């Protein structure tokens, strides 16, 4: 047998750190090598990581972790009726380094509704919370929003349809949908109960459809 090279030794150390519950940042190991040896170690570590089984759940380690953030995003999407919008819109907004108020201001302006920015804010909030059915949201809104957060309107449309609405065929859905409160500022955008619903204006139609 030939003498193990440095990549072999570093892989053994990496595996040991991983199994010992350490952070096991692979870049710390890669930084010790160059050229073909580094490429070899990268491939070996990558394959080792792909083989690793699911880690046992640890409530303390979960709190504040990226996994918790992911679960919160997915939870909102799975509870709602707007596909992946609750998971994606806040992330896209964050990535574009925009506050929600910035998005609303730009969206209201793009829709020619600066006088009704509070209503636009309410509808945008419902989009982020998964409370607004994507089918009613017009292409004009999605295209304008897409330009603000640097994606395409079609991509936003597909993301909204990426998950079948929660309980689309179950009565629990209706109960849940009614139970989710909107913040005070969004009351203006809430549809009122049947029979008392006022006529939709242009902004309503942009977010709810012709109805």
């Amino acid at each position, binding site marked *: *047998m030939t003498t193990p090279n440095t990549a072999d030794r570093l892989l053994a150390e990496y595996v040991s750190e991983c199994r010992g519950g350490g952070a096991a940042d692979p870049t710390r190991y890669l930084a010790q090598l160059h050229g073909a040896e580094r490429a070899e170690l990268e*491939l070996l570590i990558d394959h080792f990581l792909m*083989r690793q089984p699911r*880690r046992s759940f640890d409530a303390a380690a979960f709190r504040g972790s990226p996994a918790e953030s*992911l679960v919160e995003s997915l*939870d909102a*999407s799975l509870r709602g009726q707007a596909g*992946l919008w609750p998971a994606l819109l806040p992330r896209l907004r964050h990535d574009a380094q925009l506050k929600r108020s910035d998005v609303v201001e730009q969206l209201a302006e793009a829709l020619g509704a600066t006088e009704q920015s509070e209503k636009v804010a309410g509808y945008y909030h419902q989009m982020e919370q998964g409370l607004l059915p994507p089918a009613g949201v017009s292409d004009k809104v999605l295209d304008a929003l897409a330009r603000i957060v640097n994606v*395409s309107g079609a991509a936003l449309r597909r993301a909204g349809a990426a998950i079948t609405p929660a309980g689309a065929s179950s009565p629990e859905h209706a109960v849940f949908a009614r139970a989710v409160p909107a913040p005070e500022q969004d009351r203006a955008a809430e549809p009122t109960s049947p029979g008392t619903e006022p006529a939709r204006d242009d902004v309503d139609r942009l977010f709810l459809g012709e109805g």
Partner: protein
Amino acid sequence: MPPFRHLSDLELQGLSDDALIDQVRRARDSGEFDAVKLALRVLAFGHMDNVERRVRLKVPSDRVELVASNAMMSAITSAFNGQSVGEFHSWLHTIVDRRIADYHRRGRLDQVELPEEHTGDDTVWGQLPGVEDETGAIEVGNIVEELVAELSPVHREVVELAVFEQLSAAEVSLEVAAKFPAEKISADNVYKIAQRFRDSLRLRLESDDGS
């Protein structure tokens, strides 16, 4: 289909990834959103660390969490929608490879296009989850995977255990004998098989580097 049943943390831990996805789906169909979240926690926490480590091998540190979260979200939602291929574990890593490739493709686009030209489905961390049909996802070329796939089942087992699980030659010999009773692999043979694999890997790396 049997009625939905709440599972304890311990029971959830004991489920396979695919059974966890099924639990998420059935809990959601039953309107049991707290149970959805519990199952998602086990799944996301269990894989996130190793997904992040894999991404860290190839993506700058300030983008690791975005790319890793996006990959996890894509893999979970596509599996939830029944659009995954094979077992969740290997599906997840296929999607991780794909998101890393997206990230680098996007990086190349950034170098040649004006900012207003890449307002497509891509984000800085890759494709939007749910936007692309993931069933077309293919394994991104990985030399280790290719070399391992070329081995016979017995030699593959030897390489996985000796190189990646870091078992001693004697332990590998025993494990292989238990799994393949008709095969006799001595400790000396284990060394030789593992060494041949590493030699092949280095040869491929040098050859790829030269071309």
